[in-house]
């Protein structure tokens, strides 16, 4: 098979691509943009190129078969792959390239937060899970912390369930509650973008439904990029969808278009359930 990352638009059907620029049809500004992004695990190139633009206050879903590189791509965006993989190319966060060594990766990750596949609350109380990062950043005022705990838990739609047991261990919560706690923990540091890596894959359908509702309301305040292998989920909640295959973003468009009139044959096959 011929792979030539420098000239993507050739006739080979494997490399057929259709990437739209959301800023042309949408008036919300672009918050995050990747340019010529390539990711290497040692000698192996896992992401060949990803040139995507993510609009503000929208949910963008990254879909594709397992091994397509969608998670690797996501984890590269806030440099969680530092030390594991080599990321080349540019990641423009509001115009600033954050994929360069001079960038303070900690401040960047505070602005570009992440929630993982399996809920990973710390073995601390619910309250301490939320305020932990704030305390480390020097916020000590009790009233401020209390307020942030309440607003974060409310935004993550878990406040009513835990407001009476804030001092209880977070590990005593159910899986779905733990995941929403992790979202609350992520938004407590007031990020700009939330990256979610298959956040519902370890949850039951009811918890998944609650989580999706939560995300729909969160997008009013945050830009959300979510990796999912559940196409219905992508169709339900996202505004934009990118289809990944074999380390490449093949198609990127408004979600409705991806699922009804995909322009790329492979996308069509995938959303129709032919492989994956």
């Amino acid at each position, binding site marked *: 098979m011929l792979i030539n990352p420098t000239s993507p638009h050739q006739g080979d059907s494997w490399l057929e691509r259709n990437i739209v620029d959301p800023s042309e049809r949408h008036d919300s500004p672009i918050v995050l943009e990747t340019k010529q992004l390539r990711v290497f695990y040692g000698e192996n190139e896992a992401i060949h190129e990803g040139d995507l633009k993510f609009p503000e206050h929208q949910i963008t879903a990254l879909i594709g078969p397992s091994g397509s590189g969608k998670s690797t791509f996501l984890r590269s965006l*806030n440099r*969680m792959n530092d030390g594991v993989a080599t990321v080349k190319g540019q990641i423009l966060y509001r115009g600033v390239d954050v994929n360069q060594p001079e960038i303070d990766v900690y*401040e960047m990750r*505070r602005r570009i*937060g992440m929630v993982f596949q399996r809920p*990973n609350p710390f073995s601390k109380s619910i309250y301490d899970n939320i305020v*932990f990062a704030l305390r480390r950043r020097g916020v000590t005022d009790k009233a401020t912390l209390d307020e942030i705990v309440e607003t974060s838990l409310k935004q993550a739609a878990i406040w009513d369930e835990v407001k009476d047991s804030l001092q209880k261990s977070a590990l005593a919560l159910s899986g779905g509650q733990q995941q929403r706690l992790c979202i609350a*923990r992520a938004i407590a540091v007031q990020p700009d973008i939330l990256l979610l890596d298959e956040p519902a894959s370890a949850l039951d359908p009811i918890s998944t439904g609650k989580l999706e509702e939560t995300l729909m309301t969160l997008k009013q305040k945050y830009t959300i990029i979510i990796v999912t292998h559940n196409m219905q989920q992508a169709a339900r909640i996202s505004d934009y969808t990118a289809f990944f295959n074999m380390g490449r973003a093949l198609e990127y468009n408004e979600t409705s278009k991806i699922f009804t009139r995909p322009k790329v044959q492979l996308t069509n096959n995938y959303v129709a359930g032919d492989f994956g």
Partner: protein
Amino acid sequence: MNPKLSNRIAISVLYVISGTIIVILAALLGYIIISGLPAINWHFLTSPARAFTSGGGIGIQLFNSFYLLILTMLISFPIALGAGIYLNEYAKQNWVTALVRTAIEILSSLPSVVVGLFGFLIFVVQFDFGFSILSGAFALTFFNLPLLTRSIEEALAAVPNAQREGGLALGLSKWETVTHIIVPAALPAILTGVILSAGRIFGEAAALIFTAGQSAPALNFADWNPFNMTSPLNPMRPAETLAVHIWKINSEGIMPDAKAISSGSSAVLVISVLAFNLLARFVGKRLFKRLTAS
């Protein structure tokens, strides 16, 4: 030979071997406790030793053992924690790490008498600390570091990676994540390791004869100023520990009740070490429960 018959014989032999080991331990413990318990009483545990007459106790030695243990832990725990963190969280797989791991392995297999001699050479002679608690604590630190480092490293490695990612994704540094999330999560296992190594330190004698010394000068338990020579807290005084005391009276003791004193001391030593072991199990289980449940 008939395979069925040889199978039966072999298995019986294994039962006999295992039984023998149990009998050996039972005999050892029985002997230590039965011969030692009659000697143990409040006077024995609290009064100073006597060199030539009977009726001496092990009060000062017992105190020295605990003081030395605490001092050793105060010195070695931060070092072992730092080393364990670096090895588990930062070390890349390269020749430096391989060299460091080899060095730690070598240290852990060095005979404790060699470690003691090195301590003697450096602290007692070069630094002129003399035979002192401080010299002994440094020697025991070398003796303790490899095992403690390894147990801390293992404890950290057992904490799932998702916890580290959780911290990093909040914009915290790896160091903050490790010290505030990973170490607390690994605390039960770390504490178990600490207590077990405390038992080992408590019973160690070979590394101490030429560092902490073989004499136990009288102490004034009313004087807690560490700069006074008779103060129990003075780290520069020579300090024979309980384990060294047992060795000393059996090699050159001339008090008439040497045997009773050794029996009593051995019993106290073994009971203390057993207590450390039980405590380690208890603390490990208890803390683990408290950290995971609500």
